[in-house]
């Protein structure tokens, strides 16, 4: 490796994605020419699944299950789908696991790179736009069955509130006022949140609701993993507030799932 120096007219500025393109380091989206997946692509690649985000009084909660599938087979039981994007934002992924995880890595580096080069942090809107561009660049792959659909949430320091952005495969991004979920079990998760949601939830209520949403999604969708009590693998839950990104401890998540099942049994409902 040499020192990456550019003439003033070709300087990529604080754009890390632009930098690695110039340095010819492969990014998350291979060019369409390098791969020609058949129509049955979904059977051969790992796919990710249900992720949800909702706003509450202090910020946002984001949660995601842990299962990855290859067609009808379970490929991985403890995949992570919720990541810190930087100190004040989180990104969750659904879709083809390989490019999705790579996209998150590029996105994380992109945000940190900007911050270091420019000496200031990007606005939340700016971060959401950056992710949008990455999803848009991935469109040729999405057309071949390898879609990546992220969910982005963070704490807007200038507005003092949590904000959520959803994406589609074309890179369009849409701000959500309250909550959203994406992935194959997203619909079930969304419905569950809808039934329990109100403005200004407390932290515990919001975490509880996200856990219930994932539980219901896993119940209805074969590609979403529920709490794995035998192996001790639980969905990942994180909050982003004025204090930054914080993972909800695994013990707390485990206890909440146990309590949820217990409560339903006691009420005479099906767990």
């Amino acid at each position: 490796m040499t020192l990456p120096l550019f003439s003033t007219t070709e300087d990529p500025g604080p754009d890390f994605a632009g930098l690695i393109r110039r340095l010819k380091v492969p990014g998350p989206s291979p060019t369409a020419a390098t791969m020609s997946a058949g129509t049955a692509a979904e059977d051969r690649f790992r796919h990710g699944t249900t992720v949800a985000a909702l706003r509450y009084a202090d910020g946002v909660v984001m949660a995601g299950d842990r299962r990855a599938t290859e067609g009808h087979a379970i490929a991985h039981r403890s995949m992570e789908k919720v990541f810190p994007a930087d100190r004040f934002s989180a990104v969750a992924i659904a879709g083809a696991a390989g490019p999705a995880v790579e996209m998150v890595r590029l996105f994380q580096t992109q945000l940190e790179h900007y911050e270091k080069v420019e000496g200031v942090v990007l606005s939340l809107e700016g971060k959401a736009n950056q992710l949008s561009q990455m999803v848009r660049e991935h469109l040729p792959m999405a057309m071949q069955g390898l879609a990546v659909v992220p969910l982005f949430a963070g704490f807007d320091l200038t507005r003092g509130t949590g904000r959520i952005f959803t994406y589609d495969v074309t890179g369009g991004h849409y701000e959500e006022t309250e909550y959203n979920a994406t992935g194959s079990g997203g619909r079930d998760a969304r419905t569950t949140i809808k039934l329990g949601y109100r403005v200004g939830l407390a932290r515990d209520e919001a975490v509880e609701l996200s856990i219930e949403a994932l539980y219901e999604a896993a119940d209805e969708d074969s590609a979403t993993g529920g709490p794995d009590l035998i192996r001790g693998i639980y969905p990942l839950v994180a909050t982003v507030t004025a204090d930054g990104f914080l993972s909800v401890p695994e013990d707390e998540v485990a206890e909440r799932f146990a309590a949820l099942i217990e409560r339903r049994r006691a009420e005479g409902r099906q767990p």
Partner: protein
Amino acid sequence: MTMPYYVAPEQVMKDRAEYAQKGIARGRSLVATTYDLGIAIVADNPSRSLHKISEIYDRIAFAGVGKYNEFDQLRVSGIRHADTKGYAYSREDVEARSLANLYAQYLGQVFTHEMKPLEVEILVAELGTELRPPQMYHIAYEGTITDEDRYAVLGGETETIAQRLEQEWTSGWSLADALRSAVGALAGSDRTLGGPDLEVAVLAEGNGRRSFRRLVDGELEALLG
């Protein structure tokens, strides 16, 4: 046709070195020192936005003196190098030594081949681990690289500042002691430097993955006492 005058290579190098040294000596100086929990870097710099000290990577910081646009270009290329390497390999593969070598090669090349040498002196500091002591690589305008394990002084009047610091430097001293001595060494006996005249940053454990942190306002004043 007129023949160009013959100039001995020794003279060319001497002239270039003098030119670079003059440029660097015009600016203000900078001191870096290890302390019990990491590395502190103190620059005589009243600007709040044009930084001399900057974060490169998780455990690596950069500091430069001399011409701002020249060392800032080096700073940005260092961030680019580190981020690209961490992205292509792994975060733990990014280390100060290889970056310092790249800087040294580049400065050396510019010094011998270009019209004008870079009027900068830079420092690449890396926080130590359990296996490795902290490292400070001091790279001069002509590409000379020195590895300091106690303190480093960059800029003009380095000898006087280093002498003042040498008298007080103690292994494993606290951040407050280190800062007071570093500021004292920078200021000398005929002037005093306070918080607003200084740019201070540390590489320290306990800041999470990214160990670089700027010390400003109240926190800095409290440490300076």
